[in-house]
């Protein structure tokens, strides 16, 4: 067709009749199938919501009673703390391991590789139990000459509480996965970038921190967010050590009251809420590191809502003024 270019009135179809002065109006393609799909989806969602709200087994009253219960809030806080410490230690360790893997020194490479291999091979639950029983394996920790005399020694039962055992177990596991995420990010940066930095005489550490890592973050951020979210939920595994994090707290409550399903809902909603916060955080982190990759960054959801409102207003104003 020839009608898509405006301003070329001579090419307008012969049956268009009257001459127009302004540009021709573009009519978007209609998608009736989409509307049918939307209708079906809406019905299914409505059914699901109905089933959730009306099922007496869910005991929404119990849910409300316990959602802000001090012991539950305490559990939520401990879960956040476990996630925070394990994430910080895990990603710090992961970064070190990643650069060991990428180092020209073969011994460092093999060490990092072996660490990742072992830790990834052992189920997290098993790792957690190992650390919990560390005092059985090594009752004393000492500082001194390797294989020689000791200067200080500590009893592991005092040093490693169950919470610190949990943090250690989660961090050790996290470091193995984080190292692969960081390594993937570093490998995603084109070799020419390092070459340019080297040709400019930029110091080695600065090359990594200023040139490589910020670009690697484009690849690292989505994977790291994934890993952080799974870490956050994996904290529920340490409930086997009777640590009063969110999941164990809920277990204790339903053990006492036998209100299993509503208590599981309490935990679920808390997990979903906090994961949502992490997801929003991820969105803005990714935007931050998208600098320079596209000509103009797409609008944030908040900006999009504002734009939509403005468009609606404009459309309403248009309707109001007859042509």
């Amino acid at each position, binding site marked *: 067709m020839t009608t898509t270019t405006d301003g070329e009135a001579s090419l307008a179809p012969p049956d268009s009749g009257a001459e127009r002065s302004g540009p021709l109006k573009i009519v978007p393609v209609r998608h009736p199938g989409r509307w049918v799909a939307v209708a079906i989806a809406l019905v299914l969602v409505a059914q699901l919501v109905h089933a959730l709200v009306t099922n007496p087994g869910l005991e929404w009253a119990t849910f409300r009673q316990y959602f802000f219960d001090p012991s539950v809030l305490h559990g939520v806080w401990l879960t956040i703390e476990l996630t925070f410490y394990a994430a910080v230690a895990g990603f710090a360790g992961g970064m070190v391991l990643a650069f060991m893997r990428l180092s020209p020194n073969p011994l460092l490479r093999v060490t990092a590789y072996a660490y990742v291999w072992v830790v990834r091979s052992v189920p997290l639950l098993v790792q957690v139990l190992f650390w919990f029983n560390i005092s059985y394996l090594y009752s004393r920790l000492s500082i001194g000459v390797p294989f020689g005399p000791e200067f200080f020694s500590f009893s592991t039962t005092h040093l490693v509480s169950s919470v610190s055992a949990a943090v250690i177990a989660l961090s050790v596991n996290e470091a193995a996965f984080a190292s692969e995420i960081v390594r993937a990010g570093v490998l995603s940066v084109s070799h020419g970038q390092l070459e340019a930095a080297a040709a*400019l*005489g930029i110091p080695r550490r600065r090359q990594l921190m200023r040139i490589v890592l910020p670009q690697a973050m484009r690849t690292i951020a989505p994977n790291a967010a994934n890993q952080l979210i799974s870490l956050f939920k994996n904290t529920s595994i340490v409930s086997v050590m009777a640590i009063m994090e969110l999941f164990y707290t809920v277990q204790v409550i339903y053990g006492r009251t036998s209100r299993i399903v509503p208590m599981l809902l309490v935990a679920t909603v808390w997990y979903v809420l906090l994961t949502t916060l992490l997801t929003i955080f991820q969105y803005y982190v990714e935007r931050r590191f998208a600098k320079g990759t596209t000509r103009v960054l797409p609008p944030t959801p908040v900006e999009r809502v504002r734009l939509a409102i403005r468009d609606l207003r404009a459309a309403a104003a248009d309707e109001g003024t007859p042509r």
Partner: protein
Amino acid sequence: MTTTSPSAGRRPGDAAADPARVVVDIRDVHKNYGLVEVLKGVDLQVHVGEVTVVLGPSGSGKSTLLRCINHLEKVKRGTVTIDGELIGYRRVGDRLHELREREVLRQRTHIGFVFQNFNLFPHLTVEENLVEAPVSALGVPRTRAQERAGRLLERVGLRDKATAYPGQLSGGQQQRIAIARALALEPKVLLFDEPTSALDPELVGEVLDVIKDLARAGTTMIVVTHEIGFAREVADTVVFMDDGRIVEQGTPADVLDSPRHERTRTFLSKVL
């Protein structure tokens, strides 16, 4: 300073008669990639203010030679000296001791390098690209580096792009920024590795114009390129390389119009 017109240029052939300082001194450089010998003994001297254009078929070792000059590649034999300083090694008696990376990085600040694919840092603005190396490698105060970046951008005609990101610029603009970035270190010599090969034909001119300006201002340069017209106009010396060796070198008039070697003649007949 030297003139850019080739007819009035120095005769680089008789370096002994030339009072000018040798800035780049390449002696008997050999380089292997595995079993493949890519440089088979290259000797080349570039004097201060001189523009040397290196021509040759792909695979002849032109880019490798350039990368050996700033030690992005280690040579197997031979030496590269910039303004009297041995690059990549310290000579003690008959031995060459490899320098630490930190020292090599310091040496590279004297050697500007412009890549075929620009290699600008895409996550930094144009100004940050220009300021990064002077600040982190030379310790120039940031404000001084920024002032200098502004002047350099002026010089390549992109003053208004200081806050743009490389991805927002055309290829020709990016390469001009890359040239400015290399100049920000005030190097003793500028190396160009096929600076226009990745550009649309209509953008080649603006980059060559910047290089010509630099030549007129007396910048010492070695340019690997396929632009014969540029070589004829700007070069003081044209070097023709093939199969890891310099086949012949001389003024553009000598090498381009009356080549002495058969290999040069066949190459030129194909590209002209």
